[in-house]
């Protein structure tokens, strides 16, 4: 399975600012996924990022709030824009390397104050 390096692992940010989270994969993958896990909750898919095209966002998530870049087949970023305390969550990236195999990054624990 793929190995994902995600950073930062955690951050404390002021409201109104933005944070960019990076995910680097050790091999080329077609799709990368970004999830949000609010405190004590399950994982919710934010968007799917394909290289060379705009990300596909799930219901309730918009590009202005969560812009995503996918410049190549091994790297993606998620930005959390104009943050508020409600954005405090764990954000995780994921890839499907082989059919039926999904791997997750170590997560970014974001606290907005």
């Amino acid at each position, binding site marked *: 399975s793929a190995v994902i390096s995600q950073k930062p692992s955690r951050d404390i940010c002021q409201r109104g600012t933005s944070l960019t989270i990076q995910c680097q994969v050790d091999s080329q993958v077609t799709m990368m*996924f970004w999830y949000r896990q609010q405190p004590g909750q*399950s*994982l919710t*898919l934010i968007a799917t990022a394909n290289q060379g095209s705009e990300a596909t966002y799930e219901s309730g998530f918009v590009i202005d709030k969560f812009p995503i870049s996918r410049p190549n087949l091994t790297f993606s970023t998620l930005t959390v824009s104009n943050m508020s305390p409600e954005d405090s969550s764990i954000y*995780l990236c994921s890839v499907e390397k082989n059919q*039926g*195999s999904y791997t*997750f990054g170590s*997560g970014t*624990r974001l606290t907005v104050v």
Partner: protein
Amino acid sequence: ELKVEQNPLFLSMQEGKNYTIYCNYSTTSDRLYWYRQDPGKSLESLFVLLSNGAVKQEGRLMASLDTKARLSTLHITAAVHDLSATYFCAVDKADKLIFGTGTRLQVFP
């Protein structure tokens, strides 16, 4: 819209006991996953179930899939404290994972 529900949401069980976590989903899917998450950590893959009737076992955990009933189970045999964690099932729909609500398992002596 695909819904994935787990029960129970919280499970407190004594070491040595057996129990089953249930995962129900609302639309057709042939792939189901079980993950474990320790507090403050990411997700660890436990099982991938790819077909109806699939059964997989690893240590004290056994997972099964019934695609006709849209049901998966995660059975815990003779629980030990190290199994304390949150367990998620996830259904693959259109090449993306939709997660269940999670079951927080606490095993006590």
